[in-house]
């Protein structure tokens, strides 16, 4: 990122589960984004696909490890979006 705050674009892969997968109509997709954190990426994808769940009720994993929503994304990351869980 440059000193004037302009955003750098990175390419990441998003993977969707359960309701998110059905809504997006795909398991995964790769694209270029200016999102810097998982939270920013979720906001972008919620607009793109119509995900209606509040982020605080969902979970995110980066490269197969659960992560905090403010985790910084790096080029090539695989970001897994989990809708609200419902085991039991």
């Amino acid at each position, binding site marked *: 990122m440059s000193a004037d705050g302009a955003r750098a674009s990175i390419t990441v892969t998003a993977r969707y*589960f*359960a*309701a*998110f997968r*059905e*809504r997006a109509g795909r398991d995964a997709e790769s694209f270029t984004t200016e999102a810097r954190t998982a939270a920013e990426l979720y*906001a972008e994808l*919620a*607009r793109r696909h*119509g*995900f*209606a*769940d*509040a982020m605080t*009720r969902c*979970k995110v*994993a980066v490269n*197969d*490890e*659960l992560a905090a929503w403010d985790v910084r994304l790096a080029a090539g990351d695989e970001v*897994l979006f*989990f*809708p*609200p*869980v*419902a*085991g*039991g």
Partner: protein
Amino acid sequence: MSFKISSNVIELEALKRTLVADASGACVTFEGWVRDHNEGEAVHALEYESHAAIAVSEGEKILAEARERFAIDAARCEHRVGKLAIGDCAVWVGVSAAHRGAAFDACRYIIDETKQRVPIWKKEHYRDGQSGWVNCATRADAPAAAPR
């Protein structure tokens, strides 16, 4: 491995036997069954999906927390994935301990935390042919939402 995601029938008696120890005087087990209704809808089948690797790692954390918080001897949990019918056992938790209080408390802790934290999703298939993901506001057939 004490926390398991399985696409096969849960072997209740075999799992319970793994908890037996000479020091244990109590065994508490919980079985979650598929019921035929939820929130006023008639349900005829359930489908569970999970991210198995993360589910097991989070599930093992929950079991470790239970062993730390409660005076128990052993704890296990197994959760089904795939399509289940009414009456099937979807999740099983078992705890052994010297005394019943710790066994009850730990069993309750494990099932409650599992439901809240482990990446498992439940799709209900209703008698009227519709289906829906439990707890989710996102619907495949809903008009495009525009959360801003």
